[in-house]
């Protein structure tokens, strides 16, 4: 204790504290005897109260003194770390502040790569675009890819190594794991569980591991894996063969419950190729024809020329019948309900007439038998080598993932697993219920989980470590045709994660970085200058010549069983938005309306209208479903066009450890799912008490009555178009009159316009997700969606027409129509929405006072209002706001917003073209929705340029504008949906119900 504390010493004492600390710690400071002595000596009267009770006036005085002393404290130089920051005296090459850079990498779906170009703003990835040079993207992206940027910044991602909930370091983990593995005899008891591996580097590391520890076992499990495709190929060819489909060569397609444009490897390419044979501009254009049998309406099925809803057993029976009709040795099966002989004969005739240009594809979730039959049918139709290409498997080790996981669980239960290393995935949640993976996991003494989130598996494993996001690490991956992409990181790991390569390196007794691991793998495989190869390959996003080698397998005889029909069959599907549950904490995906149901934030038990009637339930009623001694309670949603006697359950919901967004939503459909019947099983249903409120973004109305008379969606057959090539009645049902009181405004520079081709729009939501990512569109949450306040600038409207059990489907992307005579503009009292000289209906956020009159007067209801502070702003912002596009304003509460035709992209193109002294080229401005669209259904450009694609497209006889009688003159027009039904089946096929 210092007897004499001078002012100098006190000042020194104070200077150790920051101003804020000082306020809090005055008492503490005053309590020291030295301070009291000092006060006594220098300010005797002030010191007294410190010992006794406090009086109001004294407190006030002291507050004043505190303020003065705080000022003194501020005079001291703050103790700051001495670090040097370096400005860009010599800026990094290519880096122009304010201009994004694009880096080629890949997004992984089910382990398969889809090439992307990641947009990076000063080192911050904000958006993914498709890589046009990548064969599995061709420039398009899936909705899930668009949303993956949000997952990158998800503040709920795991950020620490944990041992039973206690924070540990990565070094502690590696030391422990290395020691544990070294102690095993030849690796006996070491198990590695990964998801589908296509990465050549990772495959090499795993084979090195297995070589080093011969007794170790590698398991794979991914719910989305095509187990039956693998099994089907083995059945048909006796070995592992992978198939690539070439829809651009196919005129007649039979899809056996295959949602080939939306899910499974190669989906984007399928969509693009399929659409390329289907685009109709004039009556002379040809079209392919799609026969689709499926359990419930899928995006692909909505485009079908002939779509029949069939139960899972019905699909197998039909596959057998068609195969038999094509001369394949298949058992005779009764035609399933919904298919008659006329339909079958017409299909067979059509297929036979297109030998070599037809295609039969079996759905991902179909049993192996259907895959084998599809192979046999393609062989019989001479499609092999034309529309169907066989090649070596892309996966490092194709196998039945369900069986692999079951073996692992068995071994764990037997106690023969000492160390389990799980890389990615969440098997505790996604494993079939009868595998009881979680319980088995508890018996393993050392289980390490490397995952994005501290999820169900992470919390149940003894150790958990954060896994890097795809955009944070070096890796490589192959696409469905084998093309390899070297994936480069866009940003250093935000949450300190490690990649799978780094964890495997640890098991291999190495501590190499991901970069070195990937590079060293490729170094050994390149002839010539490696750095040159590396630069070119990483830049381009594909490894040249890496497609899988072709195969010419020969069919071998196989036998199949046709399953029995049941009263009620549960059909499991990955959720179209959140997949197997891995994207559950992604708000964009939670709020992405499911195709056709338009439901957000929940999963449901989808029933056909007939089945719902039989069970006596309606939308939002609860239903208890039981199978295999387990039951779940699920809210009902009635889906027109679903097969009678089926209940479709989306997996992925019912998460308990997803994060703040995804936990506790929906019900866990995995509970009903058994390893033996992963995609379909017989269930019993019983109406339960109570109701469950669901949030859908569109109330559902059939296109009859007033719906039909409004001519919102227009459609007709190719034959009808050919009969009236100049002005088909179906596209122009009402006589149009040009009547304007005033002369039209003349647009002298550009005039932006858009066409949406409804013939190829699948309603896959890629545009919705891309728009959300591009334009900083906030999510609003389930409650706000329920009361009609979702913010999507572009939505996909769904309409049905015809028979409720098997209607026609229409998807109509609807965004601001950019009317030339916009009803929103004259009603705004402050001129916050105005027309610009290029014909854009511009929205001035800063000027908007929020009367909402514009929204009322918008006949398309595409304007969105910030009823509350939806966007993250100011101090409330989380890491998620890092995903914002810096070129687009973040809107605050109380203002209106809407589609701008991606005006920021137009502005960018204008600047570039002005700098180069030229006009903007056609195709230079690509809107976010257009860029993402897998079927190129959206065309955008300058309608003042007579040669632009958009102008050419608008000259089509089936081009129309929605609500044209209102004379709003929208800049966005639509091409009527054209279908190409088999002339022999022109009378619609009736469904027996």
């Amino acid at each position, binding site marked *: 204790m210092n007897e004499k504390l001078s002012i100098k010493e006190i000042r020194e004492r104070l200077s150790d504290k920051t101003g804020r600390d000082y306020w809090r710690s005055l008492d503490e400071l005053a309590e020291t005897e030295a301070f009291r002595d000092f006060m006594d000596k220098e300010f005797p009267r002030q010191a007294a109260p410190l010992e006794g009770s406090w009086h109001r006036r004294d407190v006030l005085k002291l507050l004043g003194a505190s303020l003065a002393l705080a000022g003194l404290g501020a005079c001291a130089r703050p103790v700051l770390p001495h670090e040097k920051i370096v400005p860009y005296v010599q800026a990094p090459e290519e880096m122009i502040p304010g201009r994004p850079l694009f880096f080629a990498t890949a997004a992984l779906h089910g382990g398969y790569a889809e090439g992307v170009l990641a947009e990076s703003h000063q080192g911050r990835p904000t958006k993914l675009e498709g890589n046009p040079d990548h064969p599995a993207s061709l420039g398009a992206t899936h909705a899930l890819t668009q949303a993956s940027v949000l997952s990158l910044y998800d503040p709920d991602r795991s950020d620490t190594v944990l041992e039973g909930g206690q924070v540990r370091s990565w070094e502690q983990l590696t030391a422990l794991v290395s020691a544990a593995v070294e102690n095993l005899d030849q690796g006996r008891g070491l198990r590695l569980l990964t998801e589908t591996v296509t990465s050549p580097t990772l495959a090499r590391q795993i084979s090195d591991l297995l070589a080093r520890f011969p007794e170790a076992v590698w398991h794979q499990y991914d719910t989305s894996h095509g187990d039956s495709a693998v099994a089907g190929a083995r059945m048909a060819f006796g070995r592992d063969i992978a198939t690539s489909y070439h829809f651009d060569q196919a005129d007649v397609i039979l899809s056996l419950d295959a949602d080939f444009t939306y899910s499974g490897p190669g989906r984007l390419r399928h969509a693009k190729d399929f659409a390329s044979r289907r685009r109709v501009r004039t009556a002379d254009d040809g079209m392919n024809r799609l026969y689709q049998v499926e359990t419930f309406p899928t995006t692909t099925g909505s485009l079908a020329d002939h779509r029949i809803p069939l139960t899972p057993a019905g699909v197998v029976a039909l596959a057998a019948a068609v195969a038999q009709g094509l001369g394949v040795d298949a058992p005779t099966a009764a035609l399933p309900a919904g298919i008659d002989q006329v339909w079958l004969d017409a299909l067979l005739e059509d297929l036979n007439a297109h030998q070599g240009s037809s295609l039969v594809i079996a759905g991902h979730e179909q049993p192996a038998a259907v895959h084998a039959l599809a192979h046999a049918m393609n062989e019989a139709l001479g499609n092999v080598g034309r529309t169907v290409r066989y090649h070596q498997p892309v996966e490092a080790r194709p196998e039945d993932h369900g069986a692999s996981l079951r073996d692992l669980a068995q071994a764990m239960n037997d106690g023969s697993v000492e160390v389990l290393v799980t890389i990615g995935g969440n098997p505790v949640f996604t494993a079939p219920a009868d595998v009881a993976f979680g319980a088995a996991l508890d018996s393993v003494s050392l289980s390490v989980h490397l995952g994005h989130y501290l999820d169900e598996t992470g919390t149940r494993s003894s150790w958990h470590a954060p896994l890097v996001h795809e955009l944070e690490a070096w890796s490589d991956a192959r696409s469905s045709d084998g093309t390899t992409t070297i994936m480069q990181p866009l940003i250093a790991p935000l949450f300190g994660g490690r990649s799978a390569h780094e964890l495997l390196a640890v098991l291999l007794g190495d501590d190499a970085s991901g970069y070195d691991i990937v590079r060293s793998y490729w170094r050994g495989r390149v002839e010539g200058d490696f750095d040159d190869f590396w630069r070119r390959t990483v830049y381009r996003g594909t490894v040249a010549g890496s497609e899988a080698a072709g195969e010419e397998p020969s069919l071998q005889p196989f036998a199949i069983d046709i399953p029995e029909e049941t009263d009620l069959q549960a059909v499991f599907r990955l959720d179209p938005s959140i997949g197997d549950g891995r994207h559950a904490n992604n708000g964009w995906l939670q709020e992405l309306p499911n195709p056709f149901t338009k439901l957000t934030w929940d999963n449901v038990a989808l029933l056909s209208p007939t089945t719902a009637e039989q069970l006596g339930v309606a939308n939002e009623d609860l239903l208890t479903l039981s199978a295999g001694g387990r039951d779940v309670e699920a809210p009902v949603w009635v889906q027109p066009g679903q097969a009678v006697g089926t209940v479709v359950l989306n997996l992925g919901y019912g998460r308990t450890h997803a994060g703040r967004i995804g936990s506790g939503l929906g019900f866990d459909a995995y509970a009903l799912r058994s390893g033996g019947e992963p995609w379909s099983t017989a269930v019993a249903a019983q109406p339960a008490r109570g109701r469950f409120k669901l949030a859908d973004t569109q109330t559902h109305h059939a296109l009859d009555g007033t719906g039909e008379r409004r001519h919102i969606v227009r459609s007709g057959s190719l034959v009808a178009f050919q009969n009236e090539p100049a002005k088909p009645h179906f596209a122009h049902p009402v006589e149009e009159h040009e009547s304007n009181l005033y002369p039209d405004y003349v647009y002298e520079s550009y005039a932006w316009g858009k066409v949406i081709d409804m013939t190829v729009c699948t309603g896959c939501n890629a545009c919705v997700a891309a728009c959300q990512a591009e334009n900083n569109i906030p999510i609003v949450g389930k409650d706000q969606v329920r009361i009609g306040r979702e913010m999507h600038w572009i939505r996909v409207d769904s309409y049905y027409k015809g028979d409720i059990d098997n209607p026609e489907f229409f998807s109509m992307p609807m965004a601001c129509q950019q009317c030339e005579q916009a009803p929103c503009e004259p009603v705004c009292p402050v001129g916050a929405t105005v027309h610009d000289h290029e014909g854009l209906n511009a929205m001035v956020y800063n000027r908007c006072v*929020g009367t909402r009159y514009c929204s*009322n007067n918008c006949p*398309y209801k595409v*304007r969105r209002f910030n009823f509350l502070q939806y966007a993250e702003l100011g101090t409330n912002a989380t890491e998620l706001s890092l995903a914002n596009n810096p070129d687009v304003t973040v809107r605050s509460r109380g203002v209106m917003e809407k589609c701008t035709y991606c005006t920021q992209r137009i502005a960018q193109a204008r600047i570039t073209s002005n700098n180069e002294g030229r006009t903007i080229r056609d195709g230079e401005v690509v809107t976010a929705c257009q860029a993402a669209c897998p079927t190129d259904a959206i065309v955008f450009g300058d309608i003042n340029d007579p040669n632009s694609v958009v102008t050419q497209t608008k000259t089509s006889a089936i081009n129309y504008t929605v609500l044209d009688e209102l004379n709003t003159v929208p800049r966005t027009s639509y091409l009527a949906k054209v279908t190409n039904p088999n002339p022999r089946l022109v009378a619609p096929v009736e469904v027996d119900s």
Partner: protein
Amino acid sequence: MAVVSGKAETHRVIAPGETAGSIDDAVLNPVLAGPLRTPTWWWIGFSIAMAFLSLYLVSIVVLISTGTGVWGNNVPVGWGMPIINFVWWIGIGHAGTLISAILLLFRQPWRTSINRFAEAMTIFAVVCAGLYPILHLGRPWVFYWLAPYPNTMGLFPQFRSPLDWDLFAIATYGSVSVLFWFIGLIPDMATLRDRARSRFQKILYGTLCLGWNNSARAWQRYQRAYLLLAALSFPLVLSVHSTIALDFAVAQVPGWNNTVYPPYFVAGAVFAGFAMVLILAIPLRRGFGLQKLITRRHLDNAAKLMLATGLIVLYGYVVEAFMGWYSGVEFETYFIFNRIFGADHWWAFWLLIACNGVAIQPLWFRRVRQNPLALFVIALIVSVGMWLERFVIIVVSLTKDFLLSSWDDYVSTVWDWSLYLGSLGLFFVLFFLFIRLLPAIATSEMKELAHHDTLHGSDDDFEEIRQRYHGEEVGS
């Protein structure tokens, strides 16, 4: 107090035997009475109104701190309860000026005893109405952007928008109404000054009467100014609600886009306004014992106007439905079908017809027109009906417009209702303060009437003769 409540009902515009002194006593004594002599019913009513005013303030704080999202508005229903209530209040604020200005110009002596509080009612209703469009904005703190004012940004309002016309219509109507009301108050203020019992009253009324000296010149100037203002107000009565109607008529929403709206809205406003006059006058005459001044004749005339305007409104409903069907436009035919028979909101339409169409039919009968209780009940029903009319026009039309995909429902929230009840609180607080602090009846005009009546007899005598002739009970 000259008249005791419940006594001496008459159907003249003023009871016989009223003198200048008796009128002053009846009207001004309650105003000049000391605070302790304020009637209990006033304190009870004022306290309840204050409670609702507090609710209003709480609702506004919640609204501004949280956002428009506390209400039930959504897309497609961008305007919900706040605009319904806004139009409802504006409608109520109509009868005052109509009574004061138009009836003055048409020399209708019966207006005299009810014009003062009807004008006050108008002003308070305009206050309640005028706050709604501001609170309704997504960003209420920048409401002044609707006004043309010079600014460095060089920005001006967009004058094609009916919302901007609204701003001017309401501001003009509000300011002219206040001016008209105040001018009318001046002679009464002077009487109050002369009868003042406390220093506070002397200063207050002495200031407000602007040095009135009761000279012939003052009277001449005063009456000229009053007449001029009346002439100025006349078109405003028609213009305000026509402008509000244009908010809807200009838009292209089916159910809004109707050329009949301006006249039909004005009729509806007068209808609602007279209903509110009755709702206020019937308790007021009883509470302050003013039956000799606000006589059955007044109730009868107000009821007749209600009946007439109510029938115009009913005609409007019929024309709307006919036009919807006759247009042959799918959107219009569907809209009218949905309004009348649609599964979601048919009840609102039929309830509206019941309130505004059926409930007023008893007014054909004199016995009903002169029965204060029956009139009070009918007036309340009409007020509900006029609220429903705005609900049907605004919400039901917006829920189902052009694209089927964007149809959605509207559910109001507790904050919608609290703001509405709160605005009623604001209205009644102002009204209670008015009847306590200012003469609720224009005494100067009443004295003129009494003077005329005493010296020259009344037109009303004719009525008595007629009744005797027909053998009816006199004064029934």
